[in-house]
């Protein structure tokens, strides 16, 4: 059964819990999830650090958050969504066609060969739904797309993993 990545079942963080404990508990997995989405170690570290910094700033209010683990993921996903959108626009502006071949960067070689052919959005859709257990609606909110788009991205991802085209 897929788990909801951060802290299971929306456990309320006790007020006495320190940020240090929270950080140590979540940093590797959040970094890992961001890596699966970005296929880039530096991007993944930046996104995870940005999320932890914001979480730290709001740590005094953590008692009001139902699930702090899920919240730090949400911050990171917001930042990820923004980067993808900027990258899309940047690509359009420079009239560069998206690469149809899988990235062969040193970082991306850590990924399973099947995952390397996917676009960041496709990877994000399957990471959120398959690995973190998000519903299509939750994943759509996290990525800023319609729920039906999540279904389409997952379909494209599965097709690509079976050897088909990886459009999207």
């Amino acid at each position: 059964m897929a788990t909801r990545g951060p802290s299971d079942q929306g456990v309320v963080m006790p007020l006495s819990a320190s940020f240090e404990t929270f950080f140590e508990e979540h940093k590797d997995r959040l970094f890992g999830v961001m890596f699966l989405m970005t296929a880039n170690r530096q991007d993944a570290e930046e996104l995870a650090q940005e999320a932890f910094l914001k979480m730290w700033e709001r740590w005094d209010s953590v008692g009001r958050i139902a699930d702090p683990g899920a919240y730090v993921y949400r911050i990171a996903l917001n930042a990820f969504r923004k980067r993808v959108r900027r990258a899309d626009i940047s690509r359009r502006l420079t009239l560069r066609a998206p690469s149809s071949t899988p990235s062969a960067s040193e970082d991306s070689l850590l990924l399973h060969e099947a995952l390397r052919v996917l676009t960041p959005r496709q990877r994000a859709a399957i990471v959120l739904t398959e690995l973190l257990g998000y519903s299509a609606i939750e994943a759509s909110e996290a990525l800023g797309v319609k729920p039906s788009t999540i279904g389409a991205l997952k379909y494209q991802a599965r097709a690509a993993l079976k050897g088909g085209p990886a459009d999207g």
Partner: protein
Amino acid sequence: MDDLREILEQDLSRVGPAAFDLEELTTKREGVRRKRRVQAGILGLVVVTILIGLLVTALRAVETSEPVTTPPPRTNGWVVYSILGRGFDEPQGIYVARPGTDPKRIVGAAGDGARGFCPSFSPDGSMLSYTEGHGPGQPPGVVKIVVTAVDEFAVPVGSAQRIEVPSRGGGRGLCAQWSPDGTALAYSDSGLWVVPIGGGDARRLVEGPIHGTLAWSPDGTTIAGTSSGYVVLISVDDGEMRAVQAGTYGGSVSWSPDGRAVAVAVKDGSDGGSDRDIAVIDIERGTSRVLPLGPGVTGNEPDWSPDGQQIAFVDEGSIHLVDPDTGYLDSLPGVAVPDPSPLEIHAVDWSPDGQRLLAFGTDYQPELAYCLVSIAADGLGDPVLISPVTIAFYYTGPSDFDWQGVPT
């Protein structure tokens, strides 16, 4: 597809641990905090300087036996909004609302056909202004700006002041703006006009079109607007007009709380003009600085927070906050009210205390409708629905709602 999850889990374990640790995070955090402390120090100096100035002014007033009659600031805690157009489930008119109470229609009665729009509370919350368009039996070519006192329930009381304004159309673009001390209204109609509250003739400061939402400077000496693609600053005293920034769209101009700068959306020039950034213009120097929002992020309708630390704007239905000093960009989570599908936000307005944002957005499910919600500016807590979720907001625009700090 369990094998897919297996692949993901395998890759996750292959990636290994994160290379950064709490020490590195602490260093970054200290850097951010140091920057904020410097900013806070500067702000503190500004505040102290202003306080000293106020003290000196007050002492002089005492010396000359002039009474100081500054009303204590207060807020009335109501949101006011207008519904335009007939035939919807909510009758047209002007409404007030608070979380947890049913909205009340305070202007417009069944069948009167009058169109009230651009409602706005005075800064102390004791008065309401709005524009009254043509109704049945009213002469065409004249619209009225109505000013009325309101009680603690935001219901108009006493007789209203009606300022007649000649208008070729229905007056839809005629939105009066309160001066910071609540003694006058400014509006744009073949020029920029200022009219005193309580009676007296309107005074035309400049001729020619002034577009966008007018914005009074915090000290009430200057009104900002846009004209022919320029941000213009107009002296309330003598009508002298100064153009300070090119490349605007005629949208709203927002003053910093200290009155030293204004923010406005400008063309960013990177893609031939369709993208927009936010420019911060130093009033004294006349220089401007563009906040780099990055490609793909469009800076629409900037609204400076009351504490001066952030500028809120809307892009692609989402609410963003940008630090005017560092350009640091933050985004609020999607507003999942009244159902899990996020609203597409069109406009935001800060609460007077800077703790919350009032947002107007579209809900597409189960059918097209609109609503007003209140959102915590730090993104924490659940959004609060303020208005009904209704298609009757179809003709409502960013100038058709205002608020005075809603307790939640």
